[in-house]
């Protein structure tokens, strides 16, 4: 809580399909006086593919980045929920198994002590929600907070909020002046890594999330995971076709909503990157 400089791990997606998450994260942190020092030469955490096929890779890949942060002597801030999950799992497994830690040290460097504290950006903003300089409260904005899977589960490892009914993003939205909705799909799976392989499943899973948000009158979804954002945003038109639905739901990162409330411009938050354009809705509400 007292720390205001973090080592920062963007992760691969934030340099590509989720650029706007990286841009808005940096903009918001700058506005709040939180320092982010990007890890030098960071490499991929292995994401969902490594731990499905090879345990050694699934542990060694994140450990290298954990070691870099450890050497910087700062807690590690992570925005991507998937990276956050893999880094936390690695830290947990290495703490529980000495032999595994030794094997990993041989790969990443013998000076590695597994002491890096991994913190998600949502936690960082949540902890400071009462001291944020909100200059343009998100008045009248109904937000469905969507946490997805990777932040809250496995709870014993991520120790993040509540695995069934988390509240942190909702409370952050209240602090920003928005109106969070009570709904059922906060931690329901969006279809994860299936868009290229079993799109039918992805469409079905994402549809039920979007459909309830629409039914409850949500103006947008707030998300904390680039994979969720991609699935819910990119495939919304396909979902409308498949299920004869008429959904037009902007999917915004919580960092973008925080930035708007702190008076940052849509451009500074890269709002134009989304497939479902949030600007008409935001302009109508006088928020952009």
């Amino acid at each position: 809580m007292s720390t205001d400089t973090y080592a920062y791990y963007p992760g691969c997606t934030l340099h590509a399909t989720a650029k706007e998450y990286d841009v808005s994260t940096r903009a918001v942190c700058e506005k709040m006086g939180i320092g982010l020092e990007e890890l030098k030469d960071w490499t991929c955490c292995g994401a969902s593919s490594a731990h499905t096929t090879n345990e050694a890779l699934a542990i060694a890949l994140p450990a290298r980045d954990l070691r870099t942060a450890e050497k910087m002597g700062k807690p590690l801030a992570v925005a991507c929920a998937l990276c956050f999950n893999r880094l936390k799992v690695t830290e947990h497994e290495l703490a529980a198994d000495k032999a595994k830690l030794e094997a990993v040290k041989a790969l990443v460097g013998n000076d590695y002590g597994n002491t890096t504290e991994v913190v998600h950006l949502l936690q960082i903003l949540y902890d400071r929600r009462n001291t944020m300089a909100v200059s343009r409260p998100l008045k009248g904005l109904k937000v469905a907070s969507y946490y997805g899977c990777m932040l809250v589960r496995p709870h014993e490892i991520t120790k993040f909020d509540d695995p069934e009914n988390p509240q942190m993003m909702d409370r952050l939205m209240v602090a920003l002046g928005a109106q969070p909705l009570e709904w059922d799909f906060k931690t329901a799976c969006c279809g994860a890594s299936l868009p290229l392989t079993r799109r039918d499943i992805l469409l079905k899973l994402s549809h039920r999330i979007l459909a309830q948000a629409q039914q409850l009158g949500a103006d947008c979804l707030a998300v904390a995971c680039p994979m969720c954002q991609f699935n819910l945003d990119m495939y919304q038109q396909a979902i409308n076709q498949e299920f004869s639905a008429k959904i037009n739901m902007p999917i915004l990162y919580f960092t973008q909503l925080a930035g708007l409330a702190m008076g940052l411009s849509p451009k500074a938050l890269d709002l134009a990157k989304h497939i479902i354009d949030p600007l008409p809705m935001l302009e109508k509400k006088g928020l952009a």
Partner: protein
Amino acid sequence: MATGAAVTPSPVSDLRSFVEKQSHQHILDCYQCGKCSAGCPIDYAMDLGPRQIMRYIQMGLKKEVMQSNTIWLCVACETCSSRCPAKIDIAKVMESLRILAATEGSPAAEKNIDLFHRTFLNTIRQYGRAHEFSLAVAYTLKSRNIFGNLGAAQTMFTKGKLVIMPPKVGGASWVKTVFSKAGSTGPDVSAAVKTEGRH
């Protein structure tokens, strides 16, 4: 069973002890309450639900488990694990079954999902970081589903979300080395299977 033909005489202890060793989960703690299947968002598309997979492992029905599409469709959302009253991390069990499939080279019931993960890892091996464009191109060519993904690629390109050039990273050579080491002698994975196979 009192009468009738014997259950498939597959190596009972093999599968269960492999899974227990790999996942550190107690398979016999499962008392078949079905909470995992009830909460699984993909259960409807699986030929064996998570509860059935747990039972089949208890019974040592290796062939049936390894041929099911379940182990590939599971996206590790961990809903089952977080709700299991016996505190079994069922997603971790699924993971250990995929690791077993990779180790034994058994054919995947969902070939494209297997292909996707392999292709994804290949791009990491190559560049040190994931590169969505290379992944999408390689996967699309190998899966021969060129037109299915064209629309999404076009949208991403116009939105400036597609980075064409692969990343250049200082840690890339380290990643290559780790891939080759982990491929043959992972900290404990491959070794576990070899010893279990001798029964």
